[in-house]
C-alpha cells in the first residue's frame, strides 16, 4: 500500500457509522510501549534510535492487522505528506516533526496506526467512528498482545508499562473521544461542561490534541491519569462521562429549537450563506461554519445526504489536503483561502437551502418534550 492508496480513502473513522455518531465523531485508544532498558527516543542517540527502529519495524509489519498496510520511515515522507497524516489524525503533531530514526505504519482500513520512536518506542492507536472506545481497545489490544510476545517490553510489577513521560506510566493508555458540541457552544454552556469534566480527572482539548484550539466546536475528551486504575475502569469512566456530555448536547439542541429557534436558524442560515458564496475563506472560519451546518443536518434542516460531504469538508479544507490537490509548489495563504472557498462552494451548491419548516414544525409537534 502506498501513500496514494491511503489518500484514496478518507478512512473508516470518517466514513463509517458508529453509535452516537452525530455527536461523537470518533473514538481513539492509544497505548505507549517501550523496550526494556533501552534509551527512550528523546534520549537515544541517532544510531541507537535507528537500531531500535530496525528491531521494532519488522515486528510491527508482522501484526496481522498491518498486512498489506502502509509503512514508511519519516525521512521518506515530505513535509506535506506528514501534515496530511496529522490532519487525518493518523500521526501526532510531535511525530510529524521527526525524521530519520522514526517511522509510521498504518493498517489498510486506517483503523490502526503505529508510530515508532515518537516520544515512546511505540505509540499504537486505533481510531473508530462514533462512540466505540471498547471496540477500539480490542483492536489495539490485539496488536499489543502480538507485539508483547516478540519484543521485550519495559514492564514494572508495581508501575506497569514504563513510559518516557511519567504522566503515561501504568496502563500507558490514553482513551479519547472527539465530540461535536455546537449546541452547548451556541447555548453558551460549554465552559460549564469543560470545567466539570476537568474536575473529575478528564481532560478536554482542541481538535489536534494537547495545546490546540477547539475549532469547529470539536473537542477531545480523554483520561488524564494512567496509573492506579485498570484499562476497563478508565474506559468505563470515560464512556459514562461522554454519555452525559451527549445528553447535555442533545438537551441544549432541544432547548435551542424550542426557545431560540430564530437565533439557531439565523446561525445556520448565515453559515450556509457564507459557505455557499464565499470567494475566500480561512480554515478556522470554514470549520466553524461547517460545524453549524453539520448541526443543521443533524436537526434535519439539511437533508440526510448532506452529512457525508460536510464531514469530508472538515478534513479536505485543511491546509495540507488543499495543497495536495494542486500542482503548484506552495500555495500562499490567500491562494489557499481562494481554493478552499472554491472547494466548499462546489460541495455546498448541491445542498438545498435550510428547510425552516423543519424547525417550526419541530417546535409545534414537540411542545411537551422539554429538556431537563
Amino acid at each position, binding site marked *: 500500500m502506498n501513500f496514494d492508496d491511503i489518500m484514496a480513502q478518507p478512512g473508516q473513522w470518517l466514513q463509517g457509522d458508529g453509535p452516537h455518531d452525530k455527536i461523537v465523531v470518533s473514538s481513539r485508544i492509544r497505548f505507549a510501549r517501550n*523496550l526494556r532498558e533501552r534509551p527512550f527516543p528523546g534520549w537515544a542517540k541517532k544510531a541507537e534510535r535507528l537500531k531500535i527502529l530496525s528491531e521494532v519495524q519488522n515486528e510491527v509489519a508482522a501484526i496481522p492487522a498491518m498486512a498489506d498496510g502502509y509503512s514508511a520511515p519519516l525521512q521518506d515522507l515530505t513535509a506535506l505528506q506528514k501534515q496530511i497524516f496529522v490532519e487525518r489524525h493518523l500521526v501526532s503533531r510531535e511525530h510529524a516533526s521527526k525524521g530519520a530514526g522514526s517511522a509510521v505504519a498504518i493498517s489498510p482500513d486506517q483503523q490502526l496506526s503505529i508510530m515508532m520512536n515518537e516520544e515512546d518506542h511505540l505509540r499504537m492507536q486505533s481510531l473508530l467512528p462514533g462512540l466505540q472506545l471498547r471496540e477500539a481497545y480490542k483492536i489495539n489490544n490485539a496488536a499489543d498482545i502480538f507485539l508483547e510476545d516478540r519484543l521485550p517490553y519495559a514492564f514494572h*510489577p*508495581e508501575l506497569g508499562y514504563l513510559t518516557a513521560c511519567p504522566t503515561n506510566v501504568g496502563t500507558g493508555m490514553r482513551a479519547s473521544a472527539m465530540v461535536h458540541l455546537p449546541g452547548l457552544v451556541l447555548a453558551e454552556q460549554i465552559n460549564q461542561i469543560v470545567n466539570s469534566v476537568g474536575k473529575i480527572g478528564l481532560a478536554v482539548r482542541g481538535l489536534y490534541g494537547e495545546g490546540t484550539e477547539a475549532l469547529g466546536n470539536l473537542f477531545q475528551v480523554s483520561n488524564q*491519569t494512567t496509573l492506579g486504575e485498570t484499562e476497563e475502569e478508565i474506559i468505563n469512566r470515560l464512556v459514562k462521562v461522554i454519555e452525559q456530555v451527549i445528553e447535555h448536547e442533545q438537551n441544549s439542541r432541544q432547548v435551542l429549537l424550542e426557545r431560540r429557534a430564530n437565533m439557531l436558524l439565523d446561525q445556520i442560515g448565515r453559515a450556509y450563506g457564507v459557505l455557499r458564496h464565499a470567494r475566500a475563506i480561512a480554515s478556522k472560519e470554514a470549520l466553524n461554519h461547517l460545524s453549524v451546518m453539520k448541526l443543521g443536518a443533524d436537526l434535519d434542516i439539511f437533508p440526510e445526504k448532506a452529512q457525508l460531504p460536510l464531514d469530508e469538508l472538515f478534513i479536505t479544507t485543511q491546509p495540507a489536503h488543499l495543497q495536495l490537490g494542486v500542482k503548484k509548489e506552495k500555495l500562499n495563504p490567500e491562494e489557499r483561502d481562494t481554493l478552499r472557498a472554491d472547494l466548499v462552494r462546489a460541495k455546498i451548491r448541491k445542498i438545498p437551502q435550510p428547510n425552516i419548516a423543519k424547525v417550526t414544525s419541530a417546535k409545534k409537534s414537540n411542545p411537551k418534550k422539554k429538556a431537563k
Partner: protein
Amino acid sequence: MLCDVCQKNEATVYLTQIVEGKMQKVNLCESCAKDKGVSDPTGFAMADLLLGLGATEQIEHGQPAQKCAVCGFTQVDFKKTGRLGCSACYDTFADGLTSLLKGMHKGLKHSGKMPEKLSQHFAITDRIKVLAGELKKVVKEEKYEEAAQIRDAMQKLETKLQK
C-alpha cells in the same frame, strides 16, 4: 534569607507549592531561579517536576547528582525535558518519582493488564512467596513431612521460573 541552592546569594524568588495538601517552600536567588527555569512561566512546569523529584532534599543534603547506570540520564536532564531516559530510570530515581507520581495519578500501583508471559511469571513468584510462608509455619510446628512436600513444590516452581 540565603538561596536554598547556592547558599551564597540573597534569595529573591520565593516559590511555594502545595503538594498533596503539604506546603513546600523554596527560596532561590535570581541566578539559581533562572537556572532552574522558575523565572519563565513556560519552564515553571519543569520546576514543578524538579521539585517533585525530591530535588529540594537533595539540595539540602548536598548529595551529588544521581545518574542512571543504564542510560546515563541525570536529574538535571529530567528537569530540562520532563521526560526520563530509559525504563531503568524508574528504579534509579524511584524515591523522587514516587511523590511525583502520587500527585499525577489515581494510585501508585498498576492494576491494569500486563504482558501474558509476565503475568504467568508473577503468578509463580506470588505462589512461591505463599509457600515460603507456609513452610516457615510447618517447620515451627515441627511437621517435617509437610515441610518436605512444600519444599519440593517450591523447587518445582523455581525451575519453572528459570525456563
